[in-house]
């Protein structure tokens, strides 16, 4: 009598929107997303070379004001969004973070803080918890300071993260450890998994770098070897089995080595949008890397719901109507929606091409070889992410 409809047949149980709206994957239909990512700022004390922010970062003067973000939060709750992820850059670099969490809570939104943690004090975290914060996600760059602080380009960062993770659990907030993995830290994965267990985390995200923007610039320094990837698959599988009921592990593979493309964002404009620091409503956080699309802002005269439903940028690659061959007649077209538009654009120059991660792409073999070349390049130095267009890591570091 009591099964959750999570397991309703024909509905992908990982697709929460489909579960709630009680229908399967229908390409041409889309509702209001359940969760929205809010990139409050692009400012960040860390300089990770794979940062998912665009190469052209929004300056602090362009950021939405406190009043504008509050209006956004109210509007999101009104149209049916249930969860918001406060992200960045570093969201706690905003002085009004507590006020924004409080407001989100007041309008009934479930709140998640996605943070590097290095700016947090215990008092601040307590204020956030008291303001109604529901969940904390902390990024880790490794399991010990030598690798981690070098990748983040921030001395003392790793120790601070461990401290904040402990405070998070002391305050009885659920914790997700986010670990972005690449060639230079994959050997630490077993220790990172143990670290997540020791920190009493609920969830661990083992996220291999996805190569857009900053990460694409650093691809030669980050790309894992194929052997590393095989070993990682095995490790994650073992850990999932061993830690069932203790730690949930989400795993994102590096798709240059994949056979099928990922169902990126659940399909363009289907169940996800994010809002950039300056208020642009985007189909994904990398979407601005596709040139020729005009993304509308919450500062325009249109509502967020209108932008989601009617703007040209959201409709350009929504559903399957825009597809060319081999996607157009592919039996998987409503399964993976042709993969990632940003990756298709970055690697082929046309976002409407099939993602080269797919074996049906004429470029598939060449990107696999590219990945192997990058992995064997011997290039280990990073280009650090910053507002100055990036700074090369010095050789004597």
């Amino acid at each position, binding site marked *: 009598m*009591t099964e959750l409809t999570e397991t309703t047949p024909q509905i992908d149980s990982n697709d929460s929107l489909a579960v709630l709206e009680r229908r399967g994957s229908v390409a041409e239909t889309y509702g209001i997303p359940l969760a929205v990512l809010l990139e409050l700022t692009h400012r960040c004390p860390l300089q990770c070379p794979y940062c998912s922010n665009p190469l052209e970062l929004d300056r602090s003067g362009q950021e939405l004001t406190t009043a504008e973000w509050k209006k956004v939060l109210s509007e999101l709750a009104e149209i049916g969004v249930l969860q918001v992820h406060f992200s960045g850059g570093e969201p706690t670099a905003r002085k009004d973070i507590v006020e924004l969490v409080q407001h989100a809570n007041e309008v009934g939104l479930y709140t998640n803080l996605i943070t590097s943690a290095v700016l947090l004090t215990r008092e601040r975290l307590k204020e956030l918890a008291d303001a109604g914060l529901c969940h904390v996600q902390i990024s880790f760059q490794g399991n010990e300071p030598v690798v981690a602080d070098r990748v983040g380009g921030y001395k003392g960062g790793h120790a601070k993260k461990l401290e904040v993770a402990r405070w998070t659990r002391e305050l009885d907030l659920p914790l997700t450890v986010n670990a972005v993995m690449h060639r230079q830290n994959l050997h630490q994965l077993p220790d990172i998994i143990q670290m997540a267990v020791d920190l009493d985390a609920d*969830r661990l995200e083992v996220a291999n770098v996805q190569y857009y923007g900053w990460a694409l610039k650093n691809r030669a320094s980050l790309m894992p070897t194929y052997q590393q990837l095989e070993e990682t698959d095995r490790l994650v599988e073992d850990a999932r089995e061993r830690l069932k009921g203790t730690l949930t592990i989400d795993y994102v593979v590096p798709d240059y080595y994949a056979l099928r493309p990922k169902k990126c964002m659940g399909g363009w404009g289907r169940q996800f949008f994010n809002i950039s620091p300056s208020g642009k409503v985007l189909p994904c956080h990398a979407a601005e890397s596709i040139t020729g699309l005009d993304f509308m802002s919450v500062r325009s005269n249109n509502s967020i719901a209108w932008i989601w439903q009617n703007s040209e940028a959201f409709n350009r690659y929504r559903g399957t109507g825009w597809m060319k061959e081999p996607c157009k007649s592919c039996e998987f077209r409503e399964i993976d929606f042709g993969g990632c538009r940003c990756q298709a654009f970055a690697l082929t120059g046309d976002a409407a091409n099939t993602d080269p991660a797919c074996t049906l792409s004429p470029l598939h073999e060449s990107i696999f070889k590219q990945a192997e070349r990058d992995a064997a390049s011997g290039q280990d130095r990073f280009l650090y992410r910053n507002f100055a267009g990036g700074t090369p890591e010095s050789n004597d570091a």
Partner: protein
Amino acid sequence: MAPRHIQVTETSRVVLPRHTKLKYDETRQVWVILAPERVLAPDEIAVEVLKLCDGARSVADIIDELAAKYAAPRDVIATDVVAMLQDLADKGFLTEVRETTT
């Protein structure tokens, strides 16, 4: 910290953890459970049971109320309710109120 893994019995006093919220979604006209990175859609009966999980009532109290309300055999209701609550607890959506020692 609230206990993570609990064994649901009739004496348990269960409650949704503070990071898990039961809420009526006006837009989609369904009840939802909001949890980190997840949204679940409990069925009507689950919603009815969850609304009674206030940390004050014991599981036995909840079973008594439902058995009276539906004029159903208590043992049948008990089996279903305990199984459902255990399932939710295993997924991390339910915790137990314990006497505080401080």
